[in-house]
Every structure is written in C-alpha cells, then in structure tokens.
C-alpha cells in the first residue's frame, strides 16, 4: 500500500507553524498568560524576522487569474531581519532590508524574496554578531561609523531606472540589485563626486526619464544634496546646500520647475550623535519653535530659490506637487502633530505592544505662493500614510491620491483600509480589510490614458493564517473589493515601499 503523501494543506499548515516560533521570539520579555500571548503574537507577527533569507513560492488563489494586461513585477522592500545573532533591534526601521518580487505572469503570481547582504550585514557576519549602529538601536559594543554606507541596510524602497534595479535607504548610497538572482550588488556610483553621498529613498522621475533626488546629510556640517540624473542613469548635476539645523528629510516633491523639500522641526544634534551614547534617532530633538521650513529649489540649477515657513508638524511622505501658471505650488503630504509615532509607537510595535498612542499622520494640502506666503490646509480626519499617485502625474496636477487609512479604532496598527483621496474633497472611495488582515502600501498600475485608469496592487499580512497575500483592485472602484487575490504559504515582515515595473 502506498504511503499517504502529505497533502498541500498539510504542507501549508506545517509551514505556517514556523512563523509562530518567530513571533514568539519577537515578543521579547513576554510573561503573559497563553491567551494574552496569542493575542500579542497576532500583532507582533508583522514585526517578526523573516522566516528565511531566501523565499520562493507561487501565490495560491481561490480562483481566477489576475486581470488581463496586468503583467510585470511588483518590487517591494522593507526591514526583514529584525533579529540576528540573538540580538533584536528596537525599531521597525532598523532591520536589514529584503527585496520582494511578485511576478505577474498573466497566468498567476509568483513570489521570490531575498535578504540584502549589504557590506554592513557582511561585516556583522564576519563578527558573528550585530556590531553596527542602526537607525534607532545601538548594539552592545558597537563599532564606530566612519561613513554613512557603513550602516546602510538598504531597507526602504526600490528604484527601477535606466535598466538598473536599486534598493534605497535614506542615509546612504543606492544599492544595485541583480533582478535575476535578487542578490545585492555594489553601491551605485553615479559619479566619483557623489560616491558614498546619501541618496534618499523617494526619487522622482519625470516624463522624459530624468530623475531627481535629494540626499540628507544632517552631520556636523549639515547639508542637503540635490541630484539630477538623465534617462541613461548618468549624473548631470549635483549641488549642495547648507541647511542648519537639519534632521530627516525623507521625501520631497517635484513640480514642472522646482523641487520642494519640507523640513520638519525634528533636528539632529550632531554632538550628541558623536558622543556615541545614543542612536541616530535618539540624537534628534523636537523643536516646534523652528516651524516647518520649506525650501524651493530650481530643478535645473539645483539652487535654493525660495524659503517658506509653515507651522510645526512631522511627516515622511508626499503624494505629489504641481505648479500653477503664476508660480503657486500646491502639494500634499501625510503629516502628524509630532514625531511620536516614530520615536515611541514603532518601538512599541517591536516590543509586541502594538498600541499606537501618538497622533497619526493625516492627509493635508499645502499652498506655497511666490510672494512667500504659505498655508497648510485642514487634515482629512483619520490616519493616512503611504500616499501614492498615478506616477504619470508626477510633477503635474493630480486629482487623486491612493493611501492606507485607519478604521477609526485608534488602537493597534493604525491602517486597516485602502482609500482614494481627492485633494480638496478628501476621501471618496475605500475598502476595509477584514480585521485579521493588515494592508501594506498599495501602488497604482496604469492601464488606459486617464488618471486613475488602472489597478491598485498591494500586499497584506493575514495574522490569522500567518501568511502574506496580495490583492488587486480596480483603482476607481476600491469599494468593490479586490478583483483578484492570492496568498503565500509564509508571512513576510511588514515592509515599506515598492514599485511596479510593467512588462
């Protein structure tokens, strides 16, 4: 008699058991009764380390194929190794990055993922322990950082440009990735003059393929760096502007003629960082009296042309920016009253507390007038983050933004919905995920010419089944729910940003 082969369900269940171990390990110091631990695990699974350095599997779907015409790869990036050598990082943004590729073949979707073996990670492999300071965590007996790329974990976003695929971080160089093997390559050397100079995680690409980016260097001589790179991937121009004091400048907007950088009053104290006593994040100080400084940079000369000031607030991301004929610039962003969600909540999440007590970022619009006047509009009620637009509108007027939003409960991971916002009208369409599913960033993939004619594609973490899945929405009919979805046999840690490269 033939021995009974394990069914696919058995295999799935066995695999699904693995992450529970990691989730349990993630709940550092947990002393709760079993029931409480279980609840905690369901929240911390998104902040557990990835189950393997390399992963590969087709997505299982309950039926149907992804929409015809939706072919290509959704590339994603995010911190994935929160634990290594028995050391657990204290903040979501610390972990070594992992590139995820979800390939839409027409017939289905297949996933591959690989941890990015950066020079920082290789150094720790040689030492057999964590030795490099991270964004918000100093490992015991850590080494000194000589240059930004010493601590580059390449964990924030993915850039596809001029035939190259790159993993981006905020504080260092772009890291080239082999699109076939997903292996980490060398740091991108746009030109000798900018070798090792920070290259931020949200570059903007114009319709002719020209790429603009900023680099943020909040050291003892703080500067912002501006880059213009042509469609062939060659550096055309770079410029440096002293900006003191300076903290994190994570994102910016590009209009037809300008770049706009908004600087939250959360600034680095270089002497405190140099003391080696605190992490990069903890060397920042919230100084609301500074207000939010706004720099407008000529996108051709890369010189700072105008400065505006707005009330204090803390933000990471913009949707888009555009310019009217008279030079008035309109942009949007997701802004919180202060940085507490970064300094406190994302640490609490790593401890398995899963309680977000700080005010969340909300969607707002900003108007910058050429005469120096500036105003920020009222917040659309509720939390909103990970704003994305139809990228063909980058730098020109956009009439919609896609984002993650909260479900109004105010506790736990704040995002439970995917929404479409209209500047001026607020939320106009949305889909609420079931309570056991945590949505990650969703990106727009165009189909027709009109803005919004296309799909919204994104991943989610199913904490009940302990798996990561992927959904496809008709971008203009989110409330219909996903038109296709599939799930992996394993979970991925909650990630950050991605990009869809159509084939």
């Amino acid at each position, binding site marked *: 008699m033939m021995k009974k082969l394990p069914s696919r369900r058995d295999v799935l269940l066995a695999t699904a058991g693995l992450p529970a171990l990691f989730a349990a390990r993630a709940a550092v110091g947990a002393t709760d009764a079993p029931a409480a631990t279980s609840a905690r695990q369901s929240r911390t699974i998104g902040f557990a380390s990835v189950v393997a350095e390399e992963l590969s599997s087709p997505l299982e779907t309950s039926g149907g194929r992804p929409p015809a015409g939706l072919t290509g790869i959704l590339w994603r990036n995010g911190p994935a190794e929160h634990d290594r050598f028995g050391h657990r990082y204290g903040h979501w943004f610390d972990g070594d990055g992992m590139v995820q590729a979800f390939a839409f073949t027409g017939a289905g979707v297949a996933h591959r993922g690989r941890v990015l073996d950066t*020079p*920082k990670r290789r150094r720790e492999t040689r030492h057999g322990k964590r030795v490099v300071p991270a964004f918000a965590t100093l490992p015991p007996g850590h080494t*000194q950082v*000589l*240059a930004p*790329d*010493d601590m*580059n974990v390449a964990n924030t976003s993915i850039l596809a440009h001029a035939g190259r695929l790159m993993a981006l971080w905020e504080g260092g160089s772009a890291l080239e990735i082999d699109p076939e093997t997903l292996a980490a390559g*060398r*740091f991108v*050397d746009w030109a*000798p*003059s*900018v*070798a*090792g*100079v920070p290259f931020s995680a949200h570059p903007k690409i114009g319709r002719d393929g020209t790429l603009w980016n900023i680099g943020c*260097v909040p*050291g*003892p*001589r703080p*500067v912002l*760096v501006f880059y213009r790179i042509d469609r062939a991937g060659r550096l055309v121009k*770079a410029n*440096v502007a002293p900006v003191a004091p300076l903290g994190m400048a994570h994102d910016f907007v590009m209009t037809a003629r300008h770049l706009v950088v908004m600087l939250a009053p959360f600034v680095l104290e*270089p002497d405190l*960082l*140099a003391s080696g006593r605190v992490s990069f994040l903890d060397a920042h100080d919230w100084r609301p009296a500074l207000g939010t400084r706004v720099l407008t940079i000529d996108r051709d000369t890369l010189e700072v042309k105008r400065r505006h000031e707005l009330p204090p607030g803390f933000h990471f991301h913009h949707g888009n920016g555009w310019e009217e004929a008279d030079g008035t610039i309109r942009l949007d962003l997701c802004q919180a009253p202060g940085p507490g969600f970064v300094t406190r909540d994302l640490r609490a999440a790593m401890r398995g507390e899963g309680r977000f007590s700080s005010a969340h970022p909300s969607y707002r619009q900003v108007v910058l007038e050429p005469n120096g006047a500036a105003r920020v509009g009222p917040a659309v009620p509720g939390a909103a983050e990970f704003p994305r637009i139809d990228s063909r509108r980058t730098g020109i007027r956009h009439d919609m933004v896609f984002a993650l939003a909260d479900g109004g409960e105010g506790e736990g991971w704040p995002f439970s919905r995917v929404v479409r916002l209209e500047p001026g009208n607020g939320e106009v369409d949305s889909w609420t995920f079931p309570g056991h599913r945590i949505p990650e960033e969703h990106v727009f993939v165009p189909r027709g010419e009109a803005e919004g004619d296309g799909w919204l594609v994104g991943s989610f973490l199913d904490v009940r089944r302990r798996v990561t899945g992927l959904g496809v929405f008709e971008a203009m009919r989110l409330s219909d729910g996903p038109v296709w979805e599939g799930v992996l046999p394993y979970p991925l840690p909650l990630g950050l940003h991605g990009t869809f490269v159509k084939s």
Partner: protein
Amino acid sequence: MTRSNNTLVGLALACLALFAAQTALAGDLEVRLDGLRSADGDARIALHRRVDGVKFPDGAGVVAAISRRAVAGSMRVVFTDLPPGDYAVAAFHDADGDGELATNLLGMPTEGYGFSNGARGFMGPPRFDAATVTVGQEAGLLSVAVPMGYPES
C-alpha cells in the same frame, strides 16, 4: 647689538639646538600600514607635528612624508632621526595615483585612509591627541600601526 642681530643669534642657537637634538637624541618611528586592499597606486604616509590653531591633519603640520608603491595587505615604512616629541601619522591609499586623497562633494574620502593608533573621527578626521605617538629622549625604534579604512563599496 641691534634687535635684528639678536633675532639672528636666537635663530642660530635654535638651529644648533635642533641639530644637537637630531644627532644626539634622534629616534626612528616605524609605521605599519595594515589592511591595504590592493597594490594599486601608492601608499602616502605623512608625519605630523602639532600646530596650534591648525586642525589636524593639515599640510602646515607635516614634518616628513613618504610615498611608496602600495602593497596589498601590510607594509612598513620608517621615519628616521626624529627629535623627541609628539607626532601623529596620517596615511592614505592613493589607488588612482593622482597624488591626492579622492573625496566626494561632501569632502568624504573615497579612497582608503588611516591614522596612527587606529584613531578615528566622527564625520571627519580624529583629533591630534587621539593619534599621538611620542618619540622619547632615548634612541631606538618605535613602532605604530595605521589600520587602513575604506569607504564601503
């Protein structure tokens, strides 16, 4: 004697003293560069003295310099006949052979470099004190290590 002559005499005495120090009390300093990544170009090693009001390392403080073809791994050079006092070594691996430490537009080195005692600064060079090696009154060979650091690539 005029004031000018006084100065000349003073200078002559100082030179004599320096000469005496060099002949009677000179020391040798062996510098060992470790961790050179390749044999490309040259290793350039400069011996500095402290100069008040000038931030180390600066050309104003250089009292001797040696340039040699680079050797992958480790290499040794010796500065000879040094008067007693405090010194510091700054070295870089001039892999492209252009005679200068290559830097990016922020002034961050893009070639390998190092300082005596393995001294390191924060977003800049170390202080002279951290890299100090003292040549004493007694003749003999002192040795100091300069571990070379390279920007990640």
